[in-house]
């Protein structure tokens, strides 16, 4: 097992090694993630009290879970959660199906200009939200958009930024941004599918579709679950897109999604409530990811 030259030191080195490898990551992780999270949690248990009149002193006092009760009782809490849940139910499957289709095509023999397409699909992910906002503001705008103009000339009077459609419009931007990203994860997994598997199936007379769906997809299942979980997390943390839409649509409120609500609360100096909301959001996301994993695991048998 171990070499004869260094019999004494090796086992000890090997018990310490993982910690040595982990430490460079864990130290900044603790400092820049865990400590701030702990701080936010602490803050969520406090509230501001004022003495000496309107412009007097303030004091932070312990309040237990009072802020949590406050947040949960706000009408926006349930509204925004239901909204992102609905959003995820529609948007995630559409996006992942599109990403999978593209990944399979890129991986298959029929595709031409692979490198070009791979780049093009990835580009939206590389465009900062601030910039994407400018672009989509134009494409959605009832006055400026050629797309809306086209629909109108076909007598379809649509208001892509109206209260009925804006959630879909946001979904479109999210799909636009993240399809390429998810596609890359799937594509990377597909690269690792052993060629002999498909080859064997082909010898058995399976068509390209059958090979894709019956052979390749099951093998990259972990990658699919991965993209599913992270899309789920992303959906519950939806922030940039609705935030950006606030500037262009009359239909996105400051509490449109839970994360946006937390941000709005923090902007109004209601830090404790914002912190409480963030903690609740993290817990809810965790629960959902867990359920999702259990569900996919059971289906796998």
């Amino acid at each position, binding site marked *: 097992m171990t070499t004869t030259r260094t019999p004494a030191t090796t086992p000890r080195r090997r018990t310490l090694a993982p910690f040595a490898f*982990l430490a460079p990551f864990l130290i900044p992780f603790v400092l820049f993630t865990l400590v701030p999270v702990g701080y936010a949690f602490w803050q969520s248990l406090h509230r501001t009290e004022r003495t000496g009149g309107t412009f007097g002193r303030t004091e932070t006092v312990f309040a237990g879970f009072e802020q949590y009760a406050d947040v949960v009782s706000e009408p926006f809490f349930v509204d925004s959660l239901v909204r992102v849940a609905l959003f995820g139910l529609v948007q995630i499957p559409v996006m992942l199906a599109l990403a999978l289709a593209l990944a399979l095509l890129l991986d298959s023999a029929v595709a031409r200009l692979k490198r070009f397409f791979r780049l093009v699909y990835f580009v939206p992910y590389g465009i*900062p939200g601030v910039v994407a906002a400018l672009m989509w503001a134009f494409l959605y705008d009832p006055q400026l958009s050629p797309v809306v103009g086209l629909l109108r000339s076909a007598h379809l009077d649509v208001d892509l930024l109206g209260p009925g459609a804006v959630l879909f419009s946001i979904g479109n931007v999210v799909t636009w941004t993240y*399809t390429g990203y998810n596609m890359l994860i799937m594509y990377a997994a597909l690269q690792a599918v052993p060629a002999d598997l498909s080859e064997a199936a082909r010898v058995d007379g399976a068509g390209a579709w059958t090979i894709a769906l019956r052979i390749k997809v099951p093998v*990259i299942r972990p990658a699919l679950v991965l993209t599913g979980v992270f899309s789920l997390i992303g959906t519950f943390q939806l922030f940039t897109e609705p935030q950006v839409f606030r500037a262009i649509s009359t239909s996105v409120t400051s509490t449109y999604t839970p994360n946006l609500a937390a941000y709005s609360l923090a902007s109004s100096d209601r830090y404790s409530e914002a912190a409480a909301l963030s903690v609740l959001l993290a817990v809810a996301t965790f629960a959902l990811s867990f359920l999702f994993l259990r569900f996919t695991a059971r289906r796998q048998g």
Partner: protein
Amino acid sequence: MTLLTRTEGAHAPVPGRPRRGPGLSAVPAFVFMALVAGYMLLPVYWLLVSATKSQGDLVSTPGLLLADWHLGENLSALFAQQDGVYARWLLNSLAYAGAGAAIGTLLAAMAGYALAVYRFKGREAVFSVILGGVLVPATALALPLFLLFAEVDATNTFWSVFLPSVVSPFSVYLARIFAAASIPEEVIEAARIDGAGEWTIFRTIALRMMSPALVTVFLFQFVVIWNNFLLPLIMLQDERLYPVTLGLFTWQSQTSRVPELQTLTLVGALVSVVPIVLTFLLLQRYWRAGLAAGAVKS
């Protein structure tokens, strides 16, 4: 969470397999892919067209059609604005995202490697806590981070944005999966028998085997840091430390009073996409090289 670590599919890749198959016809596939490409590029095309327009033409001419060509003037105005602050923003972004992602990927590779290869007490506990980090919204972290940095008098510094950016639990997660999939235990054992130290094994064997995956990790983290905007917004006051996203945002927020900034914001946005595309193209090469290198080992 154990399911996520099951990676039976992710073996070392086999390049150059023959891919000629019956069935799926090339033409509909190509049409579909081209349509999706059009969808992905339409907004970018608009940006491209807008960047060539003068301020006046921006609203008064159709958005998808070219008007008078002003790209050259717009570009020189962009780099001349406020003594060339835009170039500085670009360099800052490159420093934050390039160095941040490089270091972050290395740290993630080490951590992922440790979690995949060694069996030690508390391994799953550590991994779960790291995964939990993925669940924390960036919006919830930014403000506490600011207050903590303020305590050590380090806000409004390069490091106040750089250091938190280095930490990416998601990268560790990916690195663990890839390490588990691409580094056969026998290879490590063999190296140990040859008398190689743990660090040497990691550096000379594991890193190389993981390299195609690490390129992906680097790319993802690079883009995340490049696009990050909330943390710099809260941390930085000095304009010369801004990344390009925050700089463009600042300009955009002033457009109602200084309309000329609208053109500059658009041209600036276009230019800021170029490094991302270049990074991708550059990494794509390494990707192929990496894929090939990984194959040699198996």
